[in-house]
């Protein structure tokens, strides 16, 4: 009789029973297990290698009216500093506007005609530097060092008869134009970016569970037994969330305006069209995840697995140009990267469609590929 009495003490055999059951279940769910191992590796690589708060190799365009040995030394000095990658030489000042607005370059350096002559005369000629300051972190280090870099580059040439030019003041007058966000207010950069982050996180996840829920509850079999093409099912499934995304967009924009006073200099209609495209791309991705995952939890994990690099490699948290090449290549695949350029471009820089067409095309291409995969993965049968 005594043995049947309820005992309150811990029973290790029972703990062991549950422990073994959990181990078996964990082993059977391969995807979950893989994601649990992959996420720390991913984080280590991203945080350890990809992120750099002292961004170098920033793309720079030079608009030089003359190409004298001094100008060449100056450009060489910029390149040697590793902060500036002089990728383009432009002949028209308007090209510089476009390159800055589209985000293709961070700096446009203008060397006016007569620069060398005035330099030699000791008149401290102006060197005009326009910088994309929409992300205050990205440009600040390079700008802070620019004076030193320029003077050091020129001083090497100031030998012999020119040695009188080695002045305390520096030989050129550096005129900086931090553009788009001259005060360097972080929120101006973060808040528009958050729009993309919020849309990515919520919409991919919400559609990610859309099909897996049907599978888990057994309603998938019914859905398949009824008429309807995969495309019809997909469009019907993602349409409601297009509305959700629209509401989120309105909320973020209103908060950006009222609470953070983020400027909006571009076209609202261009922004809305871009947002719609971005929302659909994310919904399609979520739908694709839900054709790959077997359970809702797996779909959530795939979302996290996608969301993490999106946050870190898109230029949302850390300057895109500061990352190593491989990280930038991955970043270029992610729709958030392009969307950030678009939304910041429109809101802060007043970028036009022409400035953003490559980024918009990239988002559209991503969407097409993802829809294609979803259609391949969506099975019309239970085979």
């Amino acid at each position, binding site marked *: 009789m005594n043995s049947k009495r309820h005992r309150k003490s811990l029973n290790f055999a029972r703990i062991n029973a549950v422990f073994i059951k959990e181990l078996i279940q964990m082993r059977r769910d391969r995807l979950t297990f893989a994601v649990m191992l992959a996420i720390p590796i991913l984080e280590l690589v991203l945080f350890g290698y990809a992120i750099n708060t002292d961004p170098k190799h920033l793309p720079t365009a030079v608009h030089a009216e003359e190409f004298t040995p001094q100008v060449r030394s100056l450009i060489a000095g910029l390149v040697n500093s590793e902060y500036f990658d002089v990728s383009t030489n432009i002949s028209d000042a308007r090209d510089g506007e476009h390159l800055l607005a589209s985000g293709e370059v961070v700096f446009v350096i203008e060397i006016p005609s007569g620069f060398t002559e005035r330099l030699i005369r000791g008149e401290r000629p102006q060197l005009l530097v326009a910088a994309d300051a929409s992300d205050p972190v990205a440009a600040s280090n390079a700008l802070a060092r620019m004076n030193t870099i320029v003077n050091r580059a020129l001083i090497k040439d100031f030998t012999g008869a020119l040695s009188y030019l080695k002045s305390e003041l520096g030989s050129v007058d550096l005129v900086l134009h931090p553009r788009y966000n001259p005060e360097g207010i972080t929120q101006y950069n973060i808040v528009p970016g958050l729009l993309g982050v919020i849309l990515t996180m919520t919409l991919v996840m919400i559609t990610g569970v859309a099909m897996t829920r049907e599978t888990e509850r057994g309603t998938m*079999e*019914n859905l*398949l*037994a*009824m008429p309807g093409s995969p495309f019809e099912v997909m469009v019907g499934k993602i349409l409601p969330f297009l509305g959700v995304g629209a509401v989120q967009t309105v909320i973020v924009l209103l908060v950006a305006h009222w609470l953070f006073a983020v400027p909006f200099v571009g076209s609202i209609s261009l922004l809305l069209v871009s947002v719609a495209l971005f929302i659909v791309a994310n919904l399609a991705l979520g739908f694709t995840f839900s054709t790959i995952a077997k359970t809702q939890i797996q779909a959530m994990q795939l979302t996290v697995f996608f969301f993490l690099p999106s946050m870190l490699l898109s230029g949302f948290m850390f300057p895109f140009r500061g990352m190593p090449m491989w990280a930038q290549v991955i970043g270029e695949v992610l729709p958030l990267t392009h969307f950030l350029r678009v939304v910041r471009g429109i809101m802060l820089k007043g970028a036009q469609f022409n400035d953003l067409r490559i980024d918009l095309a990239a988002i559209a291409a991503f969407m097409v590929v993802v829809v294609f995969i979803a259609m391949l993965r969506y099975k019309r*049968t*239970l085979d």
Partner: protein
Amino acid sequence: MTELAIDVSGLSKHFGNKIAVNKVDLHLPKGQVWGFLGPNGSGKTTTIRMLCGLLKATEGEGNCLGLDLRKDAELIRRHTGYMTQRFSFWNELTVRENLEFVARIYELKNRRRSVNDTLEVLGLAHRQHQLADALSGGWKQRLALAAVTMHKPELLLLDEPTAGVDPQARRDFWDQIHRLSNNGMTVLVSTHYMDEAERCDHIVYLAHGNLITEGTVPDIIDQSGLISFRAEGVGVRALEPRIKKLPGVEYAAYFAAGLHICGHDRSLLERAVNSVAMDGYHWQEIRPSLEDVFIALMEQTGADRRSHT
């Protein structure tokens, strides 16, 4: 010749190395109710899924409703109602919302009236605003039947529709099936219940993916060649272990307060009965029940009753 609703030959389905369905022929005349029987894992669900296009047949050709099984899967779907083994409608939707969804998917004209008529005929009208989740098992089955018949399919495939439903609800459910059949619908229904099998016009028995026997209930009992004896009385149950071991006794089971023994060899069976008759029980030859026949078939085909799909 009567028109066939299902006319397939050599239907097979392989999952990797496993043969789930092996060269099954089905020729099902229009307007009949056919029962699909067999132990768990015998291939009933797989066959039904192949018939409505949810699984691609590995081998075999044929027609469903005069449409090619392979080429016209989409069209077959439109004219077939398939009720899955597990309740597969949407729990977050009310009864009415579920039916409206189905009406939209099938592009029914006059949607409102179709939904109202269906609710009325299946006695769901007073529950139309309840969430499907809140329905009991019997009512869920009724909702599922309503949903899969609303587009007036010519062929109805029901996969264990009454599993876990109480006898009253099962009886109501079968009344509905006969009503639909009287209106010209062809029905193929899988079941484990003998009383349901006896309500069918024709029975097909599957085991291990093979079609073992088919026919009307009396035909199947006659064809089986099975002989049954029965004894009643207090303590007769205790005889079961002993009598089972006797030669010729293929199967012994206690039910309805009596012990049944079955076998194919009359002389051996009679000898077995006589050897235990001294215990004072009166043995009587009876007509084998359908259950006797099926259990004998299961033993013959070596089907493992413990296996699951």
